């Protein structure tokens, strides 16, 4: 398939693209398409609410019975939205609910947070829509610096710069978090892709290029669990991969130093959303006994159900 080169987008990008923050000009979301030759942005809805100021809804009128709609089971709301108007309205109302029930009710706390963050956790979790740590572990604003990628993988230091280790550098060296928690989960599509990979390299897929970071976990799984069915092997690999990510964390000198000094704790976790259970374990670092090829020494293993 044709791939447009980045240079054509540079050209478009350098043309004047406004991000109007003071202009509340809106365009009809439905109706005749806007005829333009230029890449453009349009302001769909601006929900800019200060306490006491009127709500500015220009895209469409509020539907009657809005209060009743807000009371409906909001888990079904997006499923009901078939058109873009509802989608934007829905996002707007979600933000306004957050603003009313969390932001304004804890204004002092949010004002403090606006000045700076001091989270005690850095979390590395999967991008899977079912496993957000803010939901499953109840992290509130300010508590957890969070990286989410496919299969919650941590590449080793020697693999060079990546988005995951940029975040590690910031969290550990700048924010000085005290805990890193890598959370794996059940039925992970990324791990399944890793376990399904044929040995020959398929260069056409991004997914394969990324999940190969977990290749040692796959190797260990194949040797330890080859007698199990594929689903059980994947489950084994999901946990094995967390352990390997913990080992990879220690390949970063500034992480190992802090762990050795007791300033930083490294934990693994596993969320099973089939049974709703959570396992957690902590890396037991004892310097000279630590080797890359040895089993990961752990302590304080908990299983909550």
């Amino acid at each position: 398939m044709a791939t447009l080169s980045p240079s054509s987008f540079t050209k478009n990008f350098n043309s004047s693209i406004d991000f109007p923050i003071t202009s509340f000009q809106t365009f009809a979301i439905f109706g005749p398409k806007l005829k333009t030759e230029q890449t453009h942005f349009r302001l769909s809805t601006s929900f800019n609410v200060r306490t006491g100021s009127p709500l500015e809804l220009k895209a469409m009128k509020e539907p009657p019975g809005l209060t009743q709609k807000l009371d409906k089971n909001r888990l079904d709301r997006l499923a009901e939205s078939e058109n873009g108007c509802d989608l934007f309205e829905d996002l707007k109302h979600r933000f306004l609910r957050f603003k009313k029930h969390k932001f304004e009710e804890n204004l002092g706390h949010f004002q403090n947070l606006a000045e700076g963050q001091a989270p005690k956790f850095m979390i590395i979790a999967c991008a899977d829509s079912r496993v957000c740590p803010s939901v499953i572990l109840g992290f509130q604003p300010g508590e957890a610096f969070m990286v989410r990628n496919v299969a919650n993988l941590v590449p080793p230091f020697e693999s060079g710069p990546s988005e995951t280790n940029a975040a590690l550098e910031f969290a550990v060296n700048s924010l000085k978090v005290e805990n890193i928690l890598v959370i794996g989960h059940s039925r992970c599509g990324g791990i399944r892709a890793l376990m399904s990979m044929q040995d020959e390299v398929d260069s056409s897929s991004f997914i394969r290029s990324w999940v190969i970071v977990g290749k040692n976990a796959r190797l260990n799984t194949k040797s330890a669990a080859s007698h199990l069915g594929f689903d059980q092997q994947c489950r084994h690999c999901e946990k094995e991969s967390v352990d390997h990510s913990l080992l990879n964390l220690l390949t970063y000198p500034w992480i190992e130093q802090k762990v050795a000094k007791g300033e930083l704790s490294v934990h693994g976790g596993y969320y099973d959303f089939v049974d709703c259970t959570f396992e957690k374990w902590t890396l037991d670092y004892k310097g000279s006994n630590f080797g890359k090829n040895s089993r990961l020494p752990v302590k304080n293993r908990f299983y909550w159900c």
Partner: protein
Amino acid sequence: MGSLEEAIEGLKKFLSDKDDAAVAKIKKLITGLQERDPNEFDPVKRILEGFQHFKINKFDKHPKLYDKLAEGQWPKFLVFACSDSRVCPSHILDFQPGEAFMVRNIANMVPAFDKLKYSGVGAAIEYAVSVLEVQNILVIGHSRCGGIKRLMTHPEDNSAPFDFIDEWVKIGLPAKVKVQAEFGDLPLEDQCKHCEKQSVKLSLCNLETYPYVQMGLANKKLRLMGGYYDFVHGKFELLEFEPHFHHLFST
């Protein structure tokens, strides 16, 4: 701290009727518990309480939903948000389990297609668009972003380099150049704010360099949106990005 006192009282009850070895162990446990600073942060306790709250108040209360989610996910959104602890979209936009496939990285950046350098982001986009078939991609920037501030100030401030952070935020250089050209006379804080927004637009443009995104846009199955969360003033802005199409040829 009621539970701590209860635990200690419970252990004390055992002291009277156990053998010496057990008594010694129990005494050691009691001492350990008594020496605990009630104000000391306990990460394990924090995680456990959070999980228990989720299980009791969400998972157990919506069995049909969670049974369905155990079988698969059908999120309508792919979201890119910053790793900043203050801006989780599950809070500010109330995304529930199953609704949003979520990538979080420093400064919520989407680099242009590059299989060697940026396989992590590419994998997330490929999975979300080709496998999960999300209908919307939303990139959310935010106020007082540390990553954007780093982009705007380094290396001009002569600070020591951060090997990985600096390499990553370089993705936003075109946004920095544009902001400095247009708003270079403004104070740094204002320039950063402009760059936070310009970087979202840059990321949306970069999304277009991924073949699966191009196909989704061409087939009108995908929408691209940019958001900006201002946690200083409690505001949220949303924009839709509509790229134009090159008509290449007809046969």
